[in-house]
């Protein structure tokens, strides 16, 4: 991470996505004494992906806490801490291991405010790297974001770039309700971007339109934004202008941005790495069907993974959607005049 000073006294950094996460955590720890980081290996080791690198040294062991190896506990104590006004930011090491924390998120984090009619709340963040493509062992490559999106009372936020990782994570930490913050680890170190460390959050519950286009709408989130933008670039070379929407907060879903775009283009491709059925793409597609059917000039296409467990790394590429898959689906929407 390289830093330079801006006129406002806030540093500008040329950072990767995982470094932007680190920058946001550092900022949150600096700004709010109630923020604590906890999880497995987040302290001395700085996290297995180094997202919490150097935070223990700067903020001490009371605020950057190595927990025992127990995911249900990590989520559960975060609920307890948050209920008393602290702002725990907990890390689950890989999304494949988040499952024992699900009960706490579903039965408690997402319900505490509602169950107590607003007396207690749960301003916690549960961070986890997710998705495939890094040739990791079994259970290290899952994309189960739809599972959390289906749970009332939780926000599910997914950045797709260093700037959005910084801004969305800060907003997630400041949000009065629980946020599951999923970091696409395949693009943790893919690109560097200028991030101004000014403590400015980016809005949650809002899609980001990354590219304007009149011919079709492409909707995605997380790591697949990378392939989606590559596909849009190739389509542009072929004379097709695709609008690219990064959903960013997959729940609650900002359908307004997606619907406005589809009303304009009449064509839509939804791209997700997760298995095909019952996913976020299914919900987006259903909502377009309910609310913008008459604008559609072609059926909504989905480009997704398969309804299988993620293969062991040798066959991972068979599972992952590709840029070519996205271009093909886009072409299919264009064939229907």
């Amino acid at each position, binding site marked *: 991470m390289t830093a330079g000073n801006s006129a406002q006294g806030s540093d500008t950094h040329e950072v990767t996505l995982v470094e932007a996460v680190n920058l946001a955590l550092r900022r949150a720890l600096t700004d709010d004494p109630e923020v*604590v980081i906890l999880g497995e290996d987040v302290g001395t080791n700085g996290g297995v992906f180094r997202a919490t690198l150097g935070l223990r040294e700067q903020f001490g062991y*009371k*605020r950057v806490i190595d*927990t*025992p190896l*127990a995911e*249900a*506990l990590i*989520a*559960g*104590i*975060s*609920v*307890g*801490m*948050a*209920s*008393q*006004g*602290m702002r*725990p930011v907990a890390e689950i090491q890989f999304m494949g291991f988040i499952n*024992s924390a699900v*009960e*706490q998120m579903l*039965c*408690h984090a997402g319900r505490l*405010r*509602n*169950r*107590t*009619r*607003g*007396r*207690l*709340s749960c301003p916690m963040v549960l961070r986890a790297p997710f998705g495939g493509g890094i040739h990791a062992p079994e259970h290290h490559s899952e994309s189960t974001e739809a599972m959390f999106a289906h749970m*009332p*009372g939780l*926000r599910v936020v997914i950045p797709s770039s260093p700037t959005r990782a910084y801004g969305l994570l800060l907003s997630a930490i400041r949000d*009065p*309700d629980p946020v599951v913050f999923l970091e696409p680890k395949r693009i943790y170190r893919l690109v560097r971007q200028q991030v101004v460390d000014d403590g400015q959050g980016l809005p949650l*519950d809002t899609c980001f339109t990354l590219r304007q286009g009149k011919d079709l709408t492409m909707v995605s989130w997380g790591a697949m934004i990378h392939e989606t933008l590559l596909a849009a670039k190739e389509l542009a070379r072929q004379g097709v202008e695709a609008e690219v929407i990064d959903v960013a907060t997959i729940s*609650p*879903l*900002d*359908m*307004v941005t997606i619907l406005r775009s589809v009303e304009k283009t009449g064509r839509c491709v939804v791209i997700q790495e997760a298995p095909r059925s019952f996913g976020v793409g299914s919900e987006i597609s259903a909502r377009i069907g309910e609310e913008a059917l008459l604008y559609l000039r072609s059926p909504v296409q989905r480009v997704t993974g398969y309804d299988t467990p993620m293969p062991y790394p040798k066959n991972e590429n068979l599972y992952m959607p590709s840029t070519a898959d996205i271009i093909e689906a886009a072409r299919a929407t264009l064939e229907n005049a």
Partner: protein
Amino acid sequence: MFDNLDQAPGKLGYIDARGKPVRELPDEIDVAWLQASYRHMVRIRQLDKKAVALQRTGQMHTYPSCLGQEAIGTGIGLAMQDDDVLVPYYRDQATQTIRGVTMQQILQVWGGDERGNLFTGVAAKDFPNSVPIGTQMSHAAGIATAMKSRGIKQAVVANCGDGATSRGDVYEALNLVGVWQLPMVAVINNNQWAISVPRSLQTGTRTLAEKALAVGIEGLQVDGNDVVAVYQAVSQALARARSGKGGTLIEAVSYRLSDHTTADDATRYRDASEVSQAWEYDPVKRLQIFLHELGHWTPTQEQTLLAEVKQQVDAAVTAYLGEVPQAADDFMAYVFAEMTPTLLAQRDQLLAKLERDSVAQGGGSDDSR
């Protein structure tokens, strides 16, 4: 029953099942304290009886009785200080009411109304009771972590039943109490039955208290039918916790004299003889006998208390039955701090549906909410 209800070496007890003192009472326990405990236990028993009756007459939903658990709840409640935090399970009516949760709120929760969890005052930071078994123990560990991290010299009491000790959640939380030396007192209400499964089928350990050994905290067994024993164990554990000396696991041995809940029928799986034997250890009766034999409880006082309690419980029931219903859309209004556009749209759908049904029934729109 699997665990003997008699007092024995290694199990803390002061007043035995026949109301006889087995050792000198702690200094802070005087007649006024004993009378206050007794009054509270009688009050809770009457509330409990009424709650079951309300369910049987269709005026309340499924209710978990605390019959036989009055000493545990009362001992804990009296041992806690105002700034301690309670993380209860669903048989802690006695503790909750000492901390200012009203009898009406207890009825309200089991009558199916979330507003019963709007605790105020001392209980403002307490958790509502947890239904998924044992999951509350890590909340308590988190609250204790917050206290320790903020340098607050208070402690958390978290309760669960004997069945909960089989869950990883309970082990994970207790393990954290040990490794971080958290100011937390865990009380296991070992009432020997987890619905139909007896304590003997939950674990191979001789006691539940000895599970403390595995996590490096203090553990002890107390007679859960002796309010003095529960009070003393919890008080001392809380004092240790508040002074930074770490957590304690207390196994309070008692017996579930009731069905699991009003939806359960315990005659399907346990002998009447076992239950009638357990009644010999009744926590309320023994304290009455003890006070009476000290010359500090008379039949007149008993009559006065019962009349007073009846009035209090009746007043709570009247208030409970007379509550203004929640607004129809309240169940949507607290999902997030602010309603999302999706929820606002769904609220409109709900209200339109209610309006439609109200019109169909010939009612006015005002009745729909």
